[in-house]
């Protein structure tokens, strides 16, 4: 295989890298200009890159190109790559009005490089490639977290994120090396073939647990979640949004894919009646803990960002439910959930960013009386938070319904996963409480008398409206995503 062929496999990624370099270059030629204008130009370049890459993905002939099986390009992977690109584009859009940094070019470039990592991550079917792209994503995200250089919190958050991330990378690598040792293969299908012949040995169990721990850090599941609240609180809002949306979508997809393909046959069962050792029960425990702790800890938060962080942990719990169900329907449910969750949390962080620019902080009390100052922004926040709580007709409701239906369908007729579904729905009732706390500030509480009028630029309003409409649209017409997903899943052979 020549290098030219290799490059042809990764054209969309190359487009993004080119866009990142162009943004860096363009920014370096106009240091004198205002940050606002530079952000606009950098954003345009990044947007053009994302759109071009997405167009390429849509138009290029679907050829299963696999240099030694490193990367795949089936319709499912394409779908995920387009999703990552869309989330990246939206992240860039919500960061355009930021004022936390003068290093605009670097910021935009890092977002794009992170996106390249995520695109490679979802395409990889080889544990080496997987690990490298995981690291590429993570390293970009660490720097993005630290990007607010004048803020101590941002630095603290980045350091915590980095240390935890490094640990988790070590766990992942340890687990993967055990897998390699057990099977002598690095490709997922070959690993699966080798593992299928073995019984559940202690070594395999350790390998599986290590992999779960590694990915558990990545998706912020309890008890590997400790970095999340600090990172969400300290990072610049668009960075936090990117961690919660794009990175989460890609990580969850590869997590599910890895477990489903590589460890097929070693699932075990997390059913209440017939527990069976394997990786599914491990994830069941992690999911249950995430739902419990995420929702309960969110209740007492006074910072909206921390509240969103704990709610993200809880949502990771719901999504893990889909991972452990491990069939085609649950994978579709997982992708739908992760994607709509990404859109929603992007919107929520965009609103947080708007409020922060206006009031200088993101405490609950800073949101008081927002609905009188900025009705449109408040209405968008209403949509995002209610979607997170799972109120119909918003995307979050159908996502939950789909995930739970898939989970229960797996256990018919004895409904073995009912205990997890009941826990999840009970906890989602708890979650309504804290989302309503935020909405209460926005709609019920009066703004403090000395509050300065909040100015929201038309551009921010436009982006928020777009996100809000997407959340409503995917909630009212989930078929839009589902039909694309189901064809992709069928051709991918799942």
């Amino acid at each position, binding site marked *: 295989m020549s290098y030219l062929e290799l490059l042809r496999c990764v054209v969309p990624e190359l487009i993004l890298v080119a866009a990142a370099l162009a943004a860096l270059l363009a920014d370096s030629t106009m240091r004198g200009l205002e940050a606002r204008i530079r952000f606009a130009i950098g954003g345009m370049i990044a947007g053009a890159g994302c759109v071009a890459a997405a167009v390429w993905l849509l138009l290029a002939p679907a050829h299963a190109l696999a240099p030694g099986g490193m990367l795949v390009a089936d319709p499912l992977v394409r779908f995920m790559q387009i999703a990552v690109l869309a989330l990246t584009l939206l992240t860039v859009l919500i960061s355009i009005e930021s004022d936390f940094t003068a290093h605009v070019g670097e910021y935009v470039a890092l977002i794009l490089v992170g996106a390249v990592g995520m695109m490679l991550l979802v395409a990889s079917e080889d544990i080496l490639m997987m690990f490298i792209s995981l690291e590429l994503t993570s390293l970009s995200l660490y720097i993005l977290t630290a990007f607010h250089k004048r803020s101590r919190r941002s630095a603290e958050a980045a350091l915590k994120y980095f240390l935890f991330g490094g640990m988790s990378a070590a766990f992942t690598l340890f687990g993967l090396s055990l897998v390699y040792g057990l099977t002598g293969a690095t490709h997922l299908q070959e690993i699966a073939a080798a593992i299928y012949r073995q019984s559940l040995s202690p070594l395999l169990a350790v390998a599986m647990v290590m992999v779960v721990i590694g990915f558990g850090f990545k998706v912020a599941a309890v008890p590997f979640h400790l970095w999340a609240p600090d990172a969400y609180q300290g990072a610049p809002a668009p960075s936090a949004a990117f961690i919660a949306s794009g990175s989460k979508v890609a990580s969850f997809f590869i997590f599910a894919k890895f477990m489903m393909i590589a460890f097929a046959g070693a699932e075990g069962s997390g059913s209440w009646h017939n527990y069976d050792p394997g990786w599914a029960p491990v994830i069941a425990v992690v999911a249950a803990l995430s739902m419990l702790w995420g929702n309960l800890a969110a209740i007492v938060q006074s910072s909206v960002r921390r509240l969103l962080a704990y709610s993200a942990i809880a949502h990771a719990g719901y999504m893990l439910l889909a991972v452990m169900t491990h069939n085609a329907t649950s994978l579709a449910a997982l992708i739908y959930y992760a994607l709509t969750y990404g859109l929603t949390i992007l919107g929520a962080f965009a609103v947080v960013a708007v409020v922060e620019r206006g009031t200088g902080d993101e405490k609950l009390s800073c949101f008081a009386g927002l609905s009188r100052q900025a009705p449109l922004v408040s209405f968008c926040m209403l949509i995002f938070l209610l979607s997170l709580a799972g*109120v*119909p007709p918003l995307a979050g409701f159908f996502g939950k*319904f789909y995930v*739970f*239906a898939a989970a229960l369908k797996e256990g*018919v007729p004895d409904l073995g996963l009912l205990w997890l579904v009941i826990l999840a729905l*009970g906890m989602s*009732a708890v979650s309504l409480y804290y989302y309503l706390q935020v909405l209460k500030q926005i709609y019920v509480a009066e703004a403090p008398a000395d509050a300065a009028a909040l100015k929201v630029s038309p551009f921010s309003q436009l982006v928020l409206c777009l996100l809000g409409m997407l959340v409503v649209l995917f909630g009212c017409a989930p*078929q839009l995503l*589902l039909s694309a997903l189901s064809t992709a899943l069928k051709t991918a052979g799942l």
Partner: protein
Amino acid sequence: MLAWTIYISFLGALVLMLLPHANARASRAAAMLTALAGLAVVLAGFVQFKAGRMVTISRVPWIPSLGIEYHLAADGISLTLVLLTGLAAVAGVLFSWNVEHRTKEFFAFYLVLIGGVYGVFLSFDLFLLLVFYEIAIIPKYFLIAIWGSTRREYGAMKLALYSFVGGAMVLVGLICAYVVAGATTLDVAELAKYPFPLSFQMWAFPLVFIGFAILAGLWPLHTWAPTGHVAAPTAASMLLAGVVMKLGAYGCLRVAMTLFPRGLEPWGFHVLGLGSWRDLFAVLAVIGILYGAMVALVQADFKFVIGYSSVSHMGFVLLGLMTLNRIGLSGGVLQMFSHGIIAGLLFAVVGRMVYDRTHTRDLAALETMELNRAIPFAAVTFVVASAAAIGLPGFSGFIAELQVLIGAWQAFPTLAVVAGIGILVGVAYTWRAMQKAFFGDAAGDASPRQTHSPPRSATKPDSPSQRHGFDAVSLPERVGAAILILASLAIGLYPQLLLKVIVPSFDSPLFEWLKTGGTR
């Protein structure tokens, strides 16, 4: 065509959101027009309806890969409740004519709530039903938390969480039913045909039933109701007691009892003399009747009296459902309608006519105000409403509770007697509240209670109304009260008007269980 009730309400809410902030009159007019248009559609649908039929309004695939349809339909039961919603919506707007604080948002939330309620009553796909059911939760929260009074944030949050927990229980039951039946449909009629295993129905039935019954005020899960009703602004408490509690009862009948009829069969053993879920819920309903009435008897707050009376009257609905015979069931449905109208009227008197003028709901304080002379219209309305509430013949409450009692007499003779005692206590608390609020002793003027009288007291009184400086009863209030009283009288004098629509509905295949296992 009935589907337009839903669309009109949501469109009205959308229009309201786009209106300019300052213009309260435009908001009122828009809300009124929307409510009237909804009522007009309902009446047209009611006239065209042929008893015993089930009208499919719209049925298109919605999420085909999961077998979920956008299926709106109406049988006599839904039609009755849709009619109630239309009436309550119009009356509610009339009684909130004086909302000046954030008027636009008030009516926008109000109309979203109305639209959700219409949607629940017309949905015959369970997913759709649940969507509308939960759409209705959020506006309730804001209506109470923003425009409410006593402990509004507490009451609003309690109501929202109770409803949401109920919704979650229903969701668990429905998803289970969905996957057990093969995950191909969520249509009510299709799932009702599916023979769920007995063991499954035995736990799914109480789960879904209780999930809905929380909203219907089933004792001991009723505690959201009094606090929510009291905290809510007038229009919201009218809707809450008038319509939203019916959502719960309707869900019990339409979903829990239709899908899992065998959950009503005997357990095969007895605990404390109760041999089935049916016995248990019937007993809880009767406890609710008695408990609500007794607690209403000792309340010091006028609105709490009405709040607890709602729990008591909703007990009759649930008891009617548990009789599992035709007369009891149709009585239960009629009671939903009747209580919706009467509770709306009572809350309108207490919240709008009395509280907005006197700024107190303390019965002891009201006693000193001679309200029968100060606001004679309110006094007359309350007397009429009380007569309807205690089941005086000629009003809708009489025929509805009578039917429930006859049905209960056939199914649970002992409980029927106890429920009858509940009616007597009902007379007592209504009488007491009426006496204290409107026909208090004016001689009390000299007593220390004087301190409770409102600050707006004029100096030189020549009539009680002017002495207290109360505004005259406005035209919207008069019209609203007239609509509700006429509705109750119409049904009371000619119950066939609704019964001929309700009763044949029980012949539909949805209620097959009535013939087979239901009646003993």
